[in-house]
């Protein structure tokens, strides 16, 4: 039943007191939000905190009537996540502590890792590390589009809304990002060696 409800219907029911409707929203969108945050924040514990904070902030905003549906719930959630990431980097800058680049923790849950042998696991980890590096070396505006489109699954229309640019600009940034990544792949001889 809940699975067939729209995001807005779930929010409406949640505001009326149906707790489980928000849990459905979390299940529905958790991967998009987590992917976005974890590709910006390398520290796993911090990424997990921001992931939770995003949804808790969504609840506060929904309950205080700050969400007006225009069919863009996930775009709105991603904007909240984006603002929390920005706030984090501002705080780090003010405190003049270690930069994000200094963290080297592994964030990725590979599927059925337990079943894979050690060598496959190591190759896979290396490829994931390389991909992460490729993405991190893109200019900020291009990186954002790649993460939002490829890892968070937003449409270009939603990306254009979040990033305050036209759809054509978002598409253009994606194209440049892909060109740049291919170039880096060739330069660094990164290829798909694991399937």
């Amino acid at each position: 039943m809940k699975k067939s409800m729209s995001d807005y219907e779930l929010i409406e029911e949640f505001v009326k007191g149906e707790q489980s409707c928000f849990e459905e929203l979390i299940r529905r969108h958790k991967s998009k939000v987590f992917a976005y945050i974890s590709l910006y924040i390398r520290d796993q514990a911090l990424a997990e905190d921001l992931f939770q904070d995003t949804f808790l902030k969504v609840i506060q905003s929904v309950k205080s009537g700050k969400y007006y549906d225009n069919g863009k719930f996930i775009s709105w959630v991603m904007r909240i996540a984006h603002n929390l990431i920005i706030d984090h980097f501002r705080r780090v800058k003010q405190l003049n502590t270690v930069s994000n680049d200094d963290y080297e923790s592994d964030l990725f849950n590979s599927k059925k890792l337990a079943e894979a042998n050690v060598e496959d696991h190591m190759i896979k980890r290396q490829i994931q590390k390389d991909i992460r590096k490729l993405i991190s070396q893109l200019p900020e505006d291009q990186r954002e589009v790649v993460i939002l489109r490829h890892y968070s699954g937003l449409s270009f229309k939603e990306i254009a809304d979040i990033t305050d640019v036209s759809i054509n600009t978002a598409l253009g940034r994606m194209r440049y990002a892909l060109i740049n990544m291919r170039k880096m792949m060739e330069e660094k001889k990164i290829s798909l060696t694991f399937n």
Partner: protein
Amino acid sequence: MAKNSTPFLSYHEIQVDDVDIYEDAFGLYQEFGDVFKLLEQLKPVPKKRLTKRLIERVRQMN
């Protein structure tokens, strides 16, 4: 004619789930299939315990 003609496909039968029409029009997947294939090797997903912890916190808030 009926035996060799292309079966008629109605508008509703065209599979458009998960297709972004702008992206499709730009032909990004066709042009950069190798890059997308590489990107697909990375799948950041939240751990089950993290989702569980979040749902517990949400329940406590209410």
